[in-house]
């Protein structure tokens, strides 16, 4: 294939995905899609293998491929031009029920030549709890509508019976209808543009280019793997749900040009929805693999070929029906993301050429907090607190992590403005700022997370409620790398009145810190809670992991962080070993104190 045509077709394919993403955001118009970028669009070959992965939540790229393959198998002989299929069953291919895949065949001159697939996190899916994450569910049957594959659009005509049935099962059906329209429009754009591409270059040329593109990615990744040392690397991720602790244990083995991810030793599946299915784990390990190992390689089937996965059946990373999985994307999948990030980074660190690409874990624990209730204009509203998309970057071999700098599996997320949130929900923010000491200490500091507090404001019902499915409160999940400490864990407090506080003189309507708030500050993480009357919700989200030994951090950088309020004086001394006098580094004192700390470490090691 000539390199010129090849390069033009490659760029066109990327533009097609990009345009389809824009269509999705335009038509959907929802905050989670537009602000959080909680979406994905990709192109697949006629056999369902990944052709061109778009920039969205990356753990969906491979599971949507499985969804395509499943549709091809289920509907064999009944796949026609203009059809659109729906699939959201986690035990077939989806990640959880509320991330609905719409999958459409692309025909050219009557022949099936490719597929497009996309998802958005729909407004609601009819689970026990509103918004899709359903902490109260203990099995898949209470996690809402779930289909292993149905035909939603037949030869260009929406099947009203199907659509109406679906909308009949969800809260705010009109919003879900809009989500569905956005995905149909997105697939239409992808189909039209692919057909235009084939009309210009011929379907055979395009198909050849697609095949070469996949082969090229495979060749490039295998070459890269051969440049990296052989070895085995491990990461353990712990996470807590309702007082129980779960473990994801990952052993990654690199041999020649193969990578094997083995999850043997991970916990058994949970009665809570933090589990994930096999295809979800498969996607979860690719989410960091694409940007960490394939930043300059096209994300397609070629990247998948050198990879293998072992995931024990009945474990949190390969749950069996009817285990609940509605929290998977911020539960076990995220633990898989983190563990894979650490294993890959450890491997990169072992190579002189690629050591600069290594990174500690970014934003190890999402917090999915969905508000629901009547807003100040009397409208029923459901929506996520988008701060979870603010994230926190892990420290890197090349420098500190970016404060509130996002996450690796969703490279272009962002959070909404305070003014947007106060306009949308009957709430008022007391503060929203970077959190001191949240970035994992290290030679390079992890990016900080942040903290915020909200109170009800102008709510017609005196307030609203929220569903929370958080983890990473008992254990930090943003692992450090190469001696770096983990980022701080997350913390959620339901601040409510004690009897003493009920005398009316207790309110601190402009509190600037958790400690300024009167009342009981109850730790919460799981379930439905009120934000009514005098309640407040305080959230502190995790920082990114640190990189390297904090005793090797440039003392001047520590002093800057202390002056900027990002690191406390205590941490500067105890963890970084930096002695400060009135904010300035005491050089001699620091050298001596660091020697002392190093000596203490050796004593500690000897004692063990």
């Amino acid at each position, binding site marked *: 294939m000539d*390199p010129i045509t090849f390069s033009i077709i490659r760029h066109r394919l990327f533009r097609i995905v990009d345009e389809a993403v824009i269509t999705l955001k335009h038509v959907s118009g929802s905050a989670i899609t537009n602000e959080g970028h909680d979406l994905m669009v990709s192109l697949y070959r006629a056999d369902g293998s990944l052709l061109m992965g778009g920039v969205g939540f990356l753990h969906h790229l491979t599971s949507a491929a499985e969804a395509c393959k499943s549709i091809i198998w289920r509907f064999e002989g009944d796949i026609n031009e203009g059809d659109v299929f729906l699939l959201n069953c986690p035990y077939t291919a989806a990640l959880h029920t509320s991330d609905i895949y719409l999958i459409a065949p692309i025909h050219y001159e009557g022949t099936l030549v490719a597929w497009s697939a996309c998802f958005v996190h729909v407004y609601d899916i009819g689970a026990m709890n509103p918004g899709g994450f359903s902490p109260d569910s203990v099995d898949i049957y209470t996690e809402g509508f779930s289909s292993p594959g149905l035909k939603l659009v037949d030869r260009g005509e929406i099947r009203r019976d199907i659509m109406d049935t679906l909308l009949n099962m969800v809260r705010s059906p009109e919003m879900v209808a809009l989500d569905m329209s956005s995905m149909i429009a997105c697939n239409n754009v992808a189909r039209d543009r692919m057909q235009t591409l084939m009309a210009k270059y011929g379907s055979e040329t395009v198909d050849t280019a697609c095949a070469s593109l996949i082969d090229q990615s495979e060749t490039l990744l295998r070459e890269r793997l051969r440049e990296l040392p052989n070895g085995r690397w491990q990461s353990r991720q712990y996470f807590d749900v309702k007082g129980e602790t779960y473990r994801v244990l990952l052993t990654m083995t690199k041999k020649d040009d193969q990578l094997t991810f083995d999850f043997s030793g991970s916990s058994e599946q949970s009665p809570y929805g933090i589990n994930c299915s096999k295809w979800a784990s498969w996607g979860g390990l690719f989410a960091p693999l694409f940007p960490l190992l394939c930043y300059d390689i096209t994300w397609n089937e070629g990247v998948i070929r050198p990879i293998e996965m072992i995931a024990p059946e009945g474990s949190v990373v390969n749950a069996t029906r009817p285990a609940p999985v509605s929290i998977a994307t911020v539960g076990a999948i995220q633990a898989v993301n983190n563990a894979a990030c650490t294993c890959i980074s450890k491997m990169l660190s072992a190579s002189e050429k690629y050591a600069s690409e290594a990174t500690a874990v970014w934003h190890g624990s999402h917090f999915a907090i969905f508000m629901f209730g009547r807003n100040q204009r009397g409208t029923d509203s459901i929506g996520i607190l988008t701060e979870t998309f603010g994230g926190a970057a892990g420290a890197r071999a090349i420098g500190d992590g970016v404060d509130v700098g996002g996450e690796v599996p969703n490279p272009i*997320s962002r959070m909404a403005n305070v*003014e947007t949130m106060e306009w949308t929900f009957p709430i008022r923010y007391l503060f929203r700022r970077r959190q001191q000491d949240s970035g994992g200490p290290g030679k390079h500091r992890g990016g900080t997370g942040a903290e915020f507090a909200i109170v009800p404001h102008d709510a017609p019902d005196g307030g609203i409620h929220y569903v929370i499915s958080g983890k990473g409160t008992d254990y930090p999940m943003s692992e450090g790398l190469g001696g770096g400490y983990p980022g701080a864990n997350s913390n959620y407090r339901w601040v409510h009145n004690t009897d003493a506080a009920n005398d009316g003189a207790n309110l601190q309507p402009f509190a600037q810190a958790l400690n300024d708030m009167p009342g009981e500050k109850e730790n919460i993480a799981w379930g439905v809670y009120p934000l009514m009357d005098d309640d407040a919700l305080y959230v502190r989200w995790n920082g990114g992991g640190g990189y390297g030994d904090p005793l090797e951090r440039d003392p001047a950088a520590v002093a800057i962080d202390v002056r900027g309020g990002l690191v406390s004086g205590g941490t500067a001394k105890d963890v970084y070993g930096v002695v400060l006098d009135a904010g300035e580094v005491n050089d001699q004192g620091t050298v001596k104190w660091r020697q002392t700390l190093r000596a203490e470490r050796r004593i500690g090691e000897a004692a063990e």
Partner: protein
Amino acid sequence: MSQSTDGKYVVASDVGGTCTDTVIFAAGEPIRLGKALSTPPNFADGVLNSVRSAADSMGLSLAELFAETRLFVHGSTVVDNTLLTRDGSVSGLITTEGFEDTLLMTRGAYGRWGGLTEDGIKHPVATDRAAPLVPGERIRGVPERVDYKGEALRPLDVGATEAAVRYLIEEQGVEAIAVCLLWSFFNPSHEQKVREIVNRISPETYVTLSSEIAPVPGEYERTSTTVINAYAGRITRDYLTSLQALLKGESYGGPILVMQGYGGLLPAEDAASRAIGMLECGPAAGVIGSRFLGQLMGDEDIIAADMGGTTFKVGVIQGGEFSHAREPMVDRFHYVAPKIEVVSIGSGGGSIISIDPRTNVPRVGPQSAGARPGPVCYGQGGTDPTLTDVMTLIGYMDPDRFLGGTVTLDMDGARQVFDEKVATPLGLGVEEAAFGIYRVAAAQITDLIHEITVEQGLDPRDFVLHSFGGSCPLLCGSFGAELNVKRIVVPYAASVNCAFGLVSADIVHEYTHTATRPVPSPAAEINALFAPMVEQAVAQLKAEGFEPDRQALEWAVDLRYGRQVHEVTTPVRGTTPFDDASLARLTDDFEALYERRYGKGSAYREAGMEMTMFRLTARGVMDRPEMEKMALGTTDSSAALMGTRRVFVDARDGMAEASIYDFEKLNPGNEIAGPAVIHTPITTIVLQDTQQGRMDEYRNVVIEFG
């Protein structure tokens, strides 16, 4: 001001990154052009040099020219330059207590990935947020709170504010202070109090309030805008003041009007307090120039493309209106201000062709050989193959007549370097590889134009393509054909289009009022929101000398569907002030615009609609330059025929015999059949196979598809 009749000349100077262009108009006289190198950081010197070069061509001294000048119109890259070089004032920021980190957090990763290309986004480990213009130690929160209705829940703490201001000025040495408090666009009283306090403590400190510079919801973008304005404000003010003094020193006593990024002019005194408005005003002027040319030619739907040495830029005009940038950025900073949308890619004549050694995939740009050493064929020591070298290899450049014969092109050198660095690695012959690179460049442009037309619901087939700059006319025959545009126009004033735009613009004041009103609302209530803006606008235009017949007030309303994030600015086409009929028409228009922009089925009527912002554009209509119109003569172009040459013809997939013409000898009315090449003093126009060219009465070359 617009009606001033002293003097016959209108002088327009546009300061770009490399050159400062000047055009001079006078009724009944030909357009005069001037050019000089820009002179950062003292741009005003380059302005005088550029005007002087035009005056020279008229046989006048600067003073003689200015004595006869009634209007000086100006566009400048001074603000962009201040930001790129980080050369602004030492600035501080005052926010609502508890929200001091808004600027530094940039809504999370948004400030990290914003402005990155695909390659950057796919490689997050290598990306960082840009260092903020105001570092953390110069940000102070003050106790106060306004809510989403504009109600002050907590008064501004004056003592704490004084302490914050003293800290910034005395301990941090700030010269400028940006103030951005939550919900200030609904209730600016606290921000105004902060300014009073700053003025009391330090009258010379430059202050920008968010409620004045960007009175719109969204505190991150509003803060960023306010900070940019404070940071560049003093330099902008000083620059315009010194320009005024310099011109006065050269005997110019008339008004100075300054181009804004939204395509309108402001008197220099007003522009001096709105640095943010001058961002990207050059490309905006280019689009304005294109619109004016379209008006002369009877075209309202135009794709305005400009390609020079380093960059390809394009804007869209539809029905005579521009589209506005939705999330504008400068450098890597977000801001919010009305701005004509102009998108760009790093692809120009000097763009270097490279081959990815691992994938063997060729790339055009974004690195550029610049003016020095420039393309290999210039023979100035360039060793990297560029797009211009490709153009010589495929026969588009005349080696002996480049830039009017002032430069002889080194064909052999270009061929040798291209063969070694591009063709051989690709495993192709030189010609074959050169055709390929030409197509890659054309495809990149096609994709970019697709982005701002098709992806926004516009069909390129309805548009005329204006092809500006030294490199665009070489490629427009190919990408214009692929986009299937109506026809292509290569304008006579192609090289000074931005300066040309300056003299075809109006004085434009933008007013906004942020408030939320349901649909339907009584007409009287909405009119009451507009009334103070109308009063202010009329007084302003009157003070500037515009009589009522020269005043145009354009109303617009931002609407959205309930629970949806997309807002659409909808121009009011019915009568103003509103009556029930015109208000109803507004919502109909909104729905049509929404579906056009966001796609069929995107409208969500069930949730109702709401109005979120009320906009008034007040236009003081300026005189348009009179363009000399020539008579159309014979269609026979043989007098300009220089001979034939083998050139690359896209549709034939190879070299073919083409007629070569001398632009200088073409006359209005002459027709040319492609494949053909027209050499002009500043560019080369290529007509592809089956394309028909003709010179119109303004000496523009119009290309139609056969």
